[in-house]
């Protein structure tokens, strides 16, 4: 496969350096509890990506569970008075 590295991109930015990618990957690493707590610099980039996928999926599952819980609560709560309390405590 011929290398296209010399051609500048549509965005006008020159070649993407490995440093840039490493920087972005390390930023991601900070967001993932699994890896962040291990404090190891030796986490490979592909491991970070993998853990990122797992983490996002677990967040999706949490949203699902919370939606389920909220839909049940909606039916049984007097939402108007609860909402006033919520707004007060969450936003002020």
């Amino acid at each position: 496969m011929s290398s296209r590295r010399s051609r500048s991109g549509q965005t006008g930015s020159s070649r993407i350096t490995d440093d840039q990618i490493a920087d972005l990957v390390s930023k991601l690493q900070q967001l993932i509890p699994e890896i962040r707590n291990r404090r190891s610099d030796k986490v490979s980039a592909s491991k970070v990506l993998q853990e990122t996928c797992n983490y996002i999926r677990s967040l999706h599952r949490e949203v699902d569970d919370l939606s389920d819980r909220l839909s049940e609560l909606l039916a049984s709560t007097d939402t108007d008075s609860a909402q006033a309390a919520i707004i007060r405590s969450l936003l002020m």
Partner: protein
Amino acid sequence: MNPQNLSLNPTSIRSKFTKTFLRALTRINNRRPPISPSREIYQRYRRVKIAADASMASAVGSRRTWSRAILWKIRNQRRYRALVSRRISTHAMTKRDPRENYGREVGHGSADELRRIVPGGEAMDFCSLLGETAHYIKCLNTQVQVMRSIADLYST
């Protein structure tokens, strides 16, 4: 309430999300049908989930690819499904720009998986994908925290 979760900035993403989502919950709650079949429970759960994702996406607005993708998908459900099936067949035949192979050592398998999980991920170059993913994760965390707080408050 945990003070560090409170946002004092009224225009922050967290605040916007909270307000929009609460409004949506009220709307969903007021949709009482005359009869309540068991399907209604599932419908309601679906509506809450969609409202949560839509509220977060609109709180972020159009400045992020992932939020645009979610908003577009929700507004164009039918067209979206047709597009996804078409995209899956053409994507396999499209030659990826070699510049995207930067970070070859990073492992294409997981990058592809990440593209599927992050909304709008298929069309991004690798660097943008990483940046969008970081922002997406932060917003998902906010979404989960607020939803949990609301559920806890409704439970009391």
